[in-house]
């Protein structure tokens, strides 16, 4: 019996120790591959000799150093990764960490968003000076809204839509055409644009939602391109590649932002400032984005929204629980499209100009990247990802000192896509499930006594 009692301890010890030899072996293998690669590439060098001809010098020291470096790096990497995996496994009910992070980030982000025009004014000295920041805020919020809209389709319902920008285009052109042709005001066009986009969503959804995964992605991708090509080629309707310009500006619910006496400033007894409109646009997109968010959060608690999430996990189970999967998918598609439509008409009213070039595949890709980086389904994650993806490249623009490093011709903006790529790769390695990967349950017990 005495021997019996020692066995488990020995077994545990072995289990604890076992990773290391494995890791060393693995790192050794890496070093061996490095050696193999180094022999033809690094180990021989040809120099010009005294006379004619070349002299071969061997560089075994360098090779050795490289192999050693690879060995150590691989070992460190593996140790880090296994350590992390073990730490992860240790805190099994994972929910805590990520959702606590989200709980801190969300209010901070919201407060900054609400006070951005004020902050910009205070920090730069005047409202006019803060223009750059407010413009950037509008741009980011547009993408936050688009990200949240697409999140309904991709993150919640799990339908991979690569042509989301098509609905954005439908919204933008709805406003552009309705306002320039029929003279309708923005406030009438905004809901109409949403409706049109949703209608397009249903139109596309009916035939394609029977498709799964890859096939759905390809068809939506094609749909996005078709919309763009139609806009380019149907010149009579959409103005072709030249687009539609002089789209009416936004008004303060009927009061134009002009210097005249019927204008916004005069009515409220303010001195006219061209920035009023910009600030108004900022708050408009903020409200639109927040509405998107609130609707999504609300939907998640309703049976339909819960059905979206269930659908993403298991379609067959959903059907056998009496859920009509076609209708469920269609509603997700249409609702996502509707928010893109709203965002599109906002885009048109802000730019006062639309052209098909604004709605190319890269836009869809960026929005999708925002959703994926954000963690597929996490609202705050999407917002943070939009800030990083859209605001990050803007930061580059300001890094003038890089010119000193890389030479005069260096334009940081040209490296935008490269950085996107790097960010993606980094994400895949470090947070393969997105920035905020933990799904927060839509219901929890209120009394979480502990």
């Amino acid at each position, binding site marked *: 019996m005495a021997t019996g009692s020692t066995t488990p301890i020995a077994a545990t010890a072995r289990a604890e120790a076992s990773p290391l030899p494995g890791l060393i072996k693995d790192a050794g293998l890496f070093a061996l591959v490095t050696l193999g690669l180094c022999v033809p590439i690094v180990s021989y060098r040809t120099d010009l000799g005294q006379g004619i001809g070349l002299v071969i010098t061997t560089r075994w020291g360098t090779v050795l150093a490289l192999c050693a470096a690879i060995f150590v790096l691989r070992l460190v990497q593996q140790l880090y990764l296994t350590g992390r995996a073990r730490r992860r496994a240790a805190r099994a009910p994972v929910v805590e960490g990520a959702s606590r992070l989200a709980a801190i980030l969300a209010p901070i982000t919201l407060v900054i968003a609400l006070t951005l025009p004020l902050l910009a004014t205070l920090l730069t000295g005047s409202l006019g000076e803060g223009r750059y920041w407010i413009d950037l805020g509008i741009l980011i919020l547009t993408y936050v809204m688009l990200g949240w809209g697409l999140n309904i389709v991709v993150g919640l319902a799990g339908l991979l839509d690569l042509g989301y920008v098509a609905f954005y285009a439908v919204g933008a052109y709805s406003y552009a055409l309705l306002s320039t042709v029929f003279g309708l005001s923005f406030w009438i066009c905004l809901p109409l644009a949403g409706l049109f986009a949703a209608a397009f969503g249903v139109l596309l959804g009916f035939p394609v939602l029977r498709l799964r995964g890859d096939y759905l992605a390809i068809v939506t991708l094609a749909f996005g391109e078709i919309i763009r090509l139609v806009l380019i080629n149907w010149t009579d309707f959409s103005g072709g590649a030249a687009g539609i310009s002089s789209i009416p500006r936004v008004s303060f619910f009927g009061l134009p932002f002009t210097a005249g006496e019927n204008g916004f400033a005069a009515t409220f007894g303010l001195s006219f400032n061209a920035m009023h409109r910009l600030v108004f646009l900022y708050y408009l997109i903020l409200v639109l984005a927040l509405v998107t968010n609130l609707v999504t959060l609300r939907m998640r608690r309703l049976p339909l929204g*819960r059905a979206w999430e269930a659908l993403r996990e298991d379609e*067959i189970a959903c059907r056998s*629980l009496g859920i009509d999967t076609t209708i469920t998918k269609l509603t997700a598609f249409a609702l996502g499209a509707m928010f893109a439509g709203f965002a599109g008409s906002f885009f048109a009213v802000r730019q006062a100009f639309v052209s098909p070039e604004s709605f190319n595949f890269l836009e869809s890709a960026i929005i999708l990247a925002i959703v994926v980086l954000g963690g597929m389904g996490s609202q705050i994650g999407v917002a943070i990802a939009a800030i990083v993806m859209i605001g990050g490249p803007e930061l580059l623009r300001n890094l003038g000192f890089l010119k000193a490093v890389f030479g005069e011709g260096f334009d940081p903006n040209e490296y935008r896509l490269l950085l996107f790529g790097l960010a993606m790769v980094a994400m895949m390695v470090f947070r393969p499930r997105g920035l905020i990967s933990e799904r927060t349950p839509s219901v929890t*017990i209120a009394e979480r006594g502990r």
Partner: protein
Amino acid sequence: MSVAGINVLVEETRALQAPLLDVRGVSAYYGSIQALKGVDLHVKEGEIVALIGANGAGKSTLMMTIFGQPQARTGSITYAGRDITRMATHEIARLNIAQSPEGRRIFSRMSVRENLQMGAALHGGRYFAEDLERMCVLFPRLKERLDQRGGTMSGGEQQMLAIARALMSRPRLLMLDEPSLGLAPLIVKQIFSAVRDLNEREGLTVFIVEQNAYHALKLAHRGYVMVTGAVTMSGTGRELLDNPQVKAAYLEGGQH
């Protein structure tokens, strides 16, 4: 008593006599491969009926065919007097048939509570609180884990969740596909006794598909044996347990 009243009564007695679920001459295909070859079986109200058979016999296919996916190519399936042969899966589910499918198929990213909510969706969550309470009594293990994500639970707990989720829709007929698969004997015992309880106390009709023939036949009132897409034997649970052929084919290796 009025004529209308008598008619209703006649209807009801007829409904009681006719089986709740009646499968007649059903064949089903996957592409050109025939998986079911004219299956006949029925389940009467209040019964527990077991379908046993080896791996690949077509048991799961039959269950899914009753649920309309794949649809039967020939034959008919009648449930509570209605022909459901050509109905869509979700419509069939809305007739109060619930299933715990092969592989459980719980929503693994969702919490236990949310999984149960999905089960209750059929009634718009009207009876949710009440039924949640019932499930917690039936499977005390779920009660402690209501906010745990489904995917992080053990196999047995997941099976309990799959059954509880099905029960949340207040079904008249509960269909279970291999609830004992991969579970420890003790857990299997718990699950089967819960099923028996439901049948005895609430009169729930149960159709259970199992490879674990011994337990299933002990539980069931009647049983069917399926071999390569066709029913080859039927009888009461006891009869099948004592049948030498069944013994040789499905009960060898001890009565676990």
